[in-house]
């Protein structure tokens, strides 16, 4: 598998095979990241499209990353998602509400799970954009502190600090507001 540096170098020449490889490698993760935060598959696909389009535009202008391509793409996606959130602070209802219930599944347990996920999503949206990004990349995408730091362009210490504040904020929002 080509390294990110090699991919970037070839991508700058608009090598179709390389660009396809980049899309195939990173778009699923970007989609999952977006759908977790936006709770909307269509919007998540828009996010993916916009992310890769902006990547191409950066290359065309002689910009773009020198390394850490994944981190770069996630930053683009995060910026776009944050703007979407600003435009529409109310998240759409959980998609599961629209799904026909499986008769073999206990509807009460499904409902509770749906409600909790909605609560967690809403709580995530109460965080600052950077806090949200740290939480999602670390706990949902499973990135290490170093990877998160690269994605955010911050030192590892700042990432840890953001994580600490984010979890404290989530704890307050999820437990103390329900008291």
């Amino acid at each position, binding site marked *: 598998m080509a390294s990110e540096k090699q991919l970037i170098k070839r991508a700058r020449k*608009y090598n179709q095979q390389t660009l*396809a490889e980049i899309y195939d490698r990173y*778009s699923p993760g970007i*989609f999952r990241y977006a*759908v*977790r935060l936006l709770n909307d*598959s*269509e919007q998540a*696909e828009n996010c993916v*499209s916009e992310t890769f*389009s*902006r*990547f*191409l*535009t*950066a290359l*065309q*202008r*002689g*910009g*773009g*990353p*020198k390394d*850490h391509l994944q981190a*770069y793409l996630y*930053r683009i996606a*995060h*910026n*776009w*998602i*944050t*703007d*979407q959130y600003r435009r529409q*602070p109310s998240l759409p209802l959980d998609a599961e509400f629209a799904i026909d219930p499986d008769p073999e599944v206990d509807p009460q347990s499904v409902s509770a799970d749906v409600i*909790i*996920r909605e609560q*967690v999503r809403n709580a995530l949206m*109460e*965080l*600052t*954009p*950077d*806090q949200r*990004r740290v939480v999602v990349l670390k706990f*949902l995408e499973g990135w290490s502190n170093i990877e998160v730091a690269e994605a*955010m*362009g*911050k030192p590892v210490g700042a990432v840890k*600090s*953001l994580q600490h*504040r984010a*979890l*404290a*904020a*989530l*704890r*307050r*929002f*999820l*437990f103390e507001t329900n008291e």
Partner: protein
Amino acid sequence: MTAQKESNTHQVIDMLDRLHETPGRDPGAAERGRTRFLAEARSMKKAVSLNPFRRLNSWIARYSIIRHRKERSLMFATISSFIIALAVVLGGSGITAYAAQDSLPNDWLYPVKLYLEDARYGLTDDPTAQIGLLTAFTNNRIDEAIGMTLQGESVPKGVVTRLQNNLQTMLQLAAGLDEDSVVPALQRIRQNLRTQEQLMSRLMQPEDLDPVLEQLRIMLQEQHRLTKLGVDEPLQFQQMFRHGETEPPGAPPEIVEPKGNQGDCTEPGDCVPVEDGTGPGPGPGGNPEPGGEEPGGGSEGQNGNQGEEKPSGSGGSGNGDEPGGKGGENGSGPGK
């Protein structure tokens, strides 16, 4: 951390785990996206000449044609020179504007960001559009305050003053709308205020305590109160503003002085070319020059260049050439 808090933290992480599962990606949508991406890349590649030798040498042919023209057009030369100069100026300023969109008050590009906000505001005389812009600028000020606090810096007085001006102007503009428009406008303002208040409340813990942030929060609460009045009693709200009976929302009795010189941009000439003495910040009578790019939004500000082209933006952060969140257009980074 107390045992209860620790337990709650573990529960939070368990709850986050529930978001691991995501709906499957529609294969058709994924394939369409992939096709679009590759097609866009192909079209970009075609913009460059296929024949590298032709690309390198074609300028000679063009130059020869110009040199050997029997009739020299002075007008053509003048217009060409003007267009080239304009492209250089706009291109260069666009790069600066793009990089400025996520700057914080302690960044050297911050005055450019404020100037561009004023420019955007000056481009429209539609009150509803102006309210929308001021809402975005209010969010920018709050982002800056949060960003500065997270960096361990004090929030400069200029941020507070500008926010205060924005809030006051928003209400005045809303009060000046026709009867059918004033309530929807105020409801939109309220919704945004609620979101911003909740964001700030998450930071107002003992370890984050900052007097200026507290003042900002009070300011937002006061603005919230006034907008609620406007929604409940629109006629009374409009009369209040016509008769000048309102005070600037949440006017703090004392503002913490910033550490050192952080370019608070409150006084005319600090960072914005003053047109008519109204100083920075859009407001009634502001007269910024047109032009500039949309500021970005997005994440809290970042500083420094970590040696690579990094995305920033609205939705964005940093002052590299990251793609803009709210559509930063120019510069070396992407963004739409």
